[in-house]
């Protein structure tokens, strides 16, 4: 089997200090994206456990897999979950969910939970689309912009580049910063053409790091152009898989001249976390 450079390791995390049996509400949010799927379990208003897995060939299995991974080291059974909200690209096809909510609303809610009520602008860089979201102090969406056609600037585009240069995708960001001088960005926003441009640059004698730097900065520039359509209001934060690529994020922040609020524990679970917060709200509302 050949190396798959786009692969990253799936993982799960469990809160060691919390006892779910004592919680009044136990709910989950599942985000089935185009590339990765996450599940978050919320015990009362605290994260109890979460997972981040690769999306498989169909949404129901991907959702089951993500939830299974999150629950693996816990003694929670699926029937213990009192309410489940599904979100993401595959949200309408999640068998265990009680309700589907769009990823835009969920990302805003999740970023608001992790980053606090001062978050106003969220950039979600997902596997196959880019979203710019404005929200109010409660995490309610006030404006959004979705770029869902072109792979440029998305995780999928980054995978194509990682495969081409045979660089593990998790190393792309750091390598792109490891250059003596920032090279000019690649001229094509289209991934297909950027790919042939990259081959040309390698033949010209550019190092892989330089090509990655040129690609990351083109990607950052494109994202900034997109964000300018809705404007940036502070505080600003970035969610989604590409938020972990420091080569792209540092260039975006430099061009925008803003800081981003770091999201703990994990910027990639914002959608699933937001879905779980919605789930808790809906559960409490139904009890009244």
């Amino acid at each position, binding site marked *: 089997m050949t190396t798959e450079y786009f692969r990253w390791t799936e993982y799960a995390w469990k809160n060691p200090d919390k006892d779910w049996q004592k919680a009044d509400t136990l709910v989950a949010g599942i985000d089935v994206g185009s590339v990765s799927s996450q599940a978050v379990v919320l015990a009362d208003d605290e994260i109890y456990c979460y997972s981040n897995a690769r999306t498989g060939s169909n949404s129901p299995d991907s959702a089951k897999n993500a939830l299974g991974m999150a629950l693996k080291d816990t003694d929670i059974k699926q029937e213990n979950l009192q309410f489940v909200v599904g979100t993401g690209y595959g949200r309408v096809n999640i068998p265990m969910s009680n309700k589907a*909510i*769009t990823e*835009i*609303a969920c990302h805003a809610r999740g970023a608001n939970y992790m980053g606090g009520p001062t978050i106003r602008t969220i950039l979600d860089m997902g596997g196959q689309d880019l979203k710019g979201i*404005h929200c*109010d102090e409660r995490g*309610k*969406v*006030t*404006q*959004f*912009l*979705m*770029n*869902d*056609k*072109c792979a*440029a600037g998305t995780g999928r585009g980054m995978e194509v580049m990682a495969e081409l240069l045979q660089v593990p995708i998790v190393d792309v960001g750091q390598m792109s910063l490891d250059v003596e001088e920032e090279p000019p960005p690649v001229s*094509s*926003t*289209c991934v297909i*053409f950027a790919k042939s441009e990259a081959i040309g640059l390698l033949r010209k004698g550019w190092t892989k790091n330089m090509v990655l730097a040129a690609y990351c900065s083109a990607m950052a520039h*494109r994202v900034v*152009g*997109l964000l300018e*359509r*809705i404007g940036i209001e502070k505080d600003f934060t970035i969610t989604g898989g590409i938020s972990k690529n420091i080569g792209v994020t540092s260039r975006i922040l430099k061009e925008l001249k803003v800081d981003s609020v770091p999201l703990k524990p994990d910027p990639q679970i914002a959608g699933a976390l937001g879905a779980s917060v919605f789930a808790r709200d809906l559960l409490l509302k139904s009890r009244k």
Partner: protein
Amino acid sequence: MFNRLLRRLVILPGYIANYGYTDGSGDYYIIVDTDKCDGCGKCVEACPQDILEIITDDYDDLVVTVKEEHSKNLKYVCAPCKPVSGPVELKCQIACPSGAITHSW
């Protein structure tokens, strides 16, 4: 309905939805001001390409949206209504009684 009234009374910021994308050749967006949109559906009838639909959004308001499969190809589906010579008022915009729809050009 009540939600919308409340939002107007307390002057919360509007809710603007941008459907579409930017690619190597430009920007292709349909922008809906969901505060102005009351989900009457006149634009849905007016659109010759049948790309719009009325949905209940995440906050329980009736609003118009671009069908998911079409938000990815606005450049192509909206092209027949858009002359190269420059911006004109489009069928969906003329049909809208509250001026909630704008297009990027």
